[in-house]
């Protein structure tokens, strides 16, 4: 009893910390990033399990070198989960657990629930299923990775393909002339009529969700694979059960992903990459500035681009950004606190700054509301975004935590 309570106490203590991982020498290797864009009706847990399962299968069957292939989840929130839950609640007096079992295919949903879910899946404008704020953050991450010199493959499932296609279009038209031959898409169960950039698609011929979408959008890509084995998901749409574990669709996905990824070009790095990078973007007001206070007190901003650890790439004074702060090498990384802030320098209306911080394996996004321009008076005390805490040394490696305001 005592041992069990001790264990639980330890588990509680450990779980209250942000997990931290060592920055390694692999920062310098060429990398291929595989982003998984989750589908509709996916909770944050389902999306996470899907890409872990996908990574496991791809690494084992593809024999992928650990340091050179990085797997990320590009999460998008599905607004349809709320209305389908409302329908459930109106019709069903049972525990909410039943809803989650039905939506996750743990138990067979009744006809009325299935019909409503499929109706919601196919209703509305496909383009409006993409949330602008979510898309903007995905695009920023893809752009950062591309500019650092890595190949990027986005594997979209269902709704994730709408985000992936939109991201491709935005990146292809980016003013920085991004290396799009290093950016590719693979579409699984896509509701769309195309795969941007000409990537392959895999859709089951009996996918009920995609069938429902195709009823309203005749251009939706046709099913091109029929499995012989059965799956537990009544929708035949689940990324793991219906697709990856399909006797034909599973191998088709793996071979398509490997073929597409290996066919991407290696881009020339346009910016530095390393243990810390901070990206600031904003709207159409002319000037918002990124500020970083390094552990030794160095203040990196437009008037002092070079710090002790890192540097600011440039000062954008003509709207939107981005501005980047980079620590590109573990050689200049210092233990201590990197304080990240923004100053609304010039503009005539309220503005919103978006800041993406990557520190080791951690990536966090922040949205900062700026009410009015402060000019140079705001330089000494910019609006706080987050602190990056670095612990460790060059011999034993470093660990990171990132924490800031809500």
């Amino acid at each position, binding site marked *: 009893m005592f041992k069990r309570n001790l264990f639980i106490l330890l*588990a509680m203590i450990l779980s209250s910390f942000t*997990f931290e991982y060592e920055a390694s020498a692999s920062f310098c290797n060429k990398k291929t990033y595989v982003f998984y864009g989750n589908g509709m009706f996916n909770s944050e847990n*389902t999306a996470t*399990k899907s890409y872990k399962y996908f990574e*496991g299968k791809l690494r084992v069957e593809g024999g992928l070198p650990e340091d050179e292939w990085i797997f*990320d989840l590009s999460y998008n*929130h599905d607004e349809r989960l*709320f209305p389908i839950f409302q329908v459930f609640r109106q019709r069903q007096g049972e525990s909410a*657990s039943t809803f989650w079992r039905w939506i996750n295919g743990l138990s067979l949903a009744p006809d009325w629930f299935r019909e409503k879910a499929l109706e919601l899946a196919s209703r509305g404008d496909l383009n409006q299923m993409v949330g602008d704020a979510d898309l903007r953050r995905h695009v920023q991450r893809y752009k950062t990775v591309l500019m650092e010199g890595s190949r990027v493959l986005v594997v979209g499932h269902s709704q994730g393909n709408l985000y992936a296609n939109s991201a491709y279009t935005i990146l292809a038209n980016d003013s920085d002339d991004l290396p799009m031959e290093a950016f590719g898409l693979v579409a699984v169960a896509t509701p769309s009529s195309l795969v941007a950039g000409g990537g392959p698609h895999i859709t089951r011929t009996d996918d009920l969700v995609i069938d429902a979408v195709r009823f309203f959008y005749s251009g939706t890509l046709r099913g091109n694979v029929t499995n012989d084995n059965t799956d537990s998901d009544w929708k035949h749409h689940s990324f793991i059960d219906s697709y990856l574990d399909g006797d034909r669709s599973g191998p088709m996905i793996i071979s398509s992903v490997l073929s597409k990824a290996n066919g991407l070009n290696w881009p020339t790095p346009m910016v530095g990459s390393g243990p810390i990078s901070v990206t600031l973007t904003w709207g159409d007001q002319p000037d918002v500035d990124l500020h970083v206070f390094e552990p030794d007190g160095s203040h990196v901003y437009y008037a002092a681009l070079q710090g002790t650890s890192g540097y600011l790439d440039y000062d954008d004074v003509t709207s939107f950004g981005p501005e980047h702060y980079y620590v590109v090498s573990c050689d200049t990384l210092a233990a201590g606190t990197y304080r990240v802030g923004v100053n609304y320098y010039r503009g005539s209306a309220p503005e919103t700054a978006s800041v993406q911080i990557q520190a080791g394996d951690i990536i966090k996004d922040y949205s900062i509301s700026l009410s009015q321009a402060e000019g140079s008076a705001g330089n000494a005390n910019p609006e706080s975004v987050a602190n990056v805490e670095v612990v460790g040394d060059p011999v034993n490696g470093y660990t990171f935590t990132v924490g800031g305001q809500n």
Partner: protein
Amino acid sequence: MNQAVKLLLWLLFMGFAWTSQAMELQVVAEQRFASSQGEPVTQELLFNGSGFADFVLKVQNGSADGTQRVSSALVSLNGVKILAPADFNQNVQTLERSIAPLPAGNSLAVTVRSNPGGFLLVQVLGAPIFQLPPDPGPAGDATLEGVDSNGNGIRDDIERWIYLTYPDSEKLRRALIQEYYPLQNMIIHGQQQNRDAVYDDMIALQRSSECLYYVYPDRPHKVSAELEARILNTDQRTYGYFEASRLLGGGTFQGVPMSKWKNSCNFNPDEMKN
């Protein structure tokens, strides 16, 4: 009495007390079987033995005052005879037998052969493998946080489910407890609109997922989805989780390489036998 004798007596007492506690049996399942008119009818008591050990079948014959006793009955467990008609007569008050049920899916068949009015109270007793908090019932669903009567940081309903569903795998129980925290915390932080905390929860969920895949590679998403369904068992908890999802939209979350998934556990699974 000298100190050595006192110490010896104290140790003997403590040993007895410990033994008594360890042997304390709880009711796993029980049912009253009454005799009826006409041909004897065989009735079934279905039960799971999960989470218990050292099972005893206890049969009380009729009322405590000696009335309503039966003179013949047949009791079998999963088709194996435990009590025969010869074990019963009007003078038998209680019978006890050690039994070995399966962890799940047991059938105790009882046929009462006696005049109408008699009954048997049949109990399956077992020693709980784990000291678990009581089922909180509806009170456990009244708040987002739920009831944590033993103060160990886990909702009692979830703690009971994890331990009683997976009594034979310590590493899976620990992996699910690790997974519980970010899922439960997301509900709270989502409801609070605490974006930074929800991000930390999501990062912790990446680690617990990697751990779960390492510990239980055979379709862990199904186990996790059931845990998720049980954690999100009320409307308010579901709404908090939806809010967390909304705050996470647009986020990108990096995994650690597969070879390091073991290190994502906040315990050492390789040190555990099961």
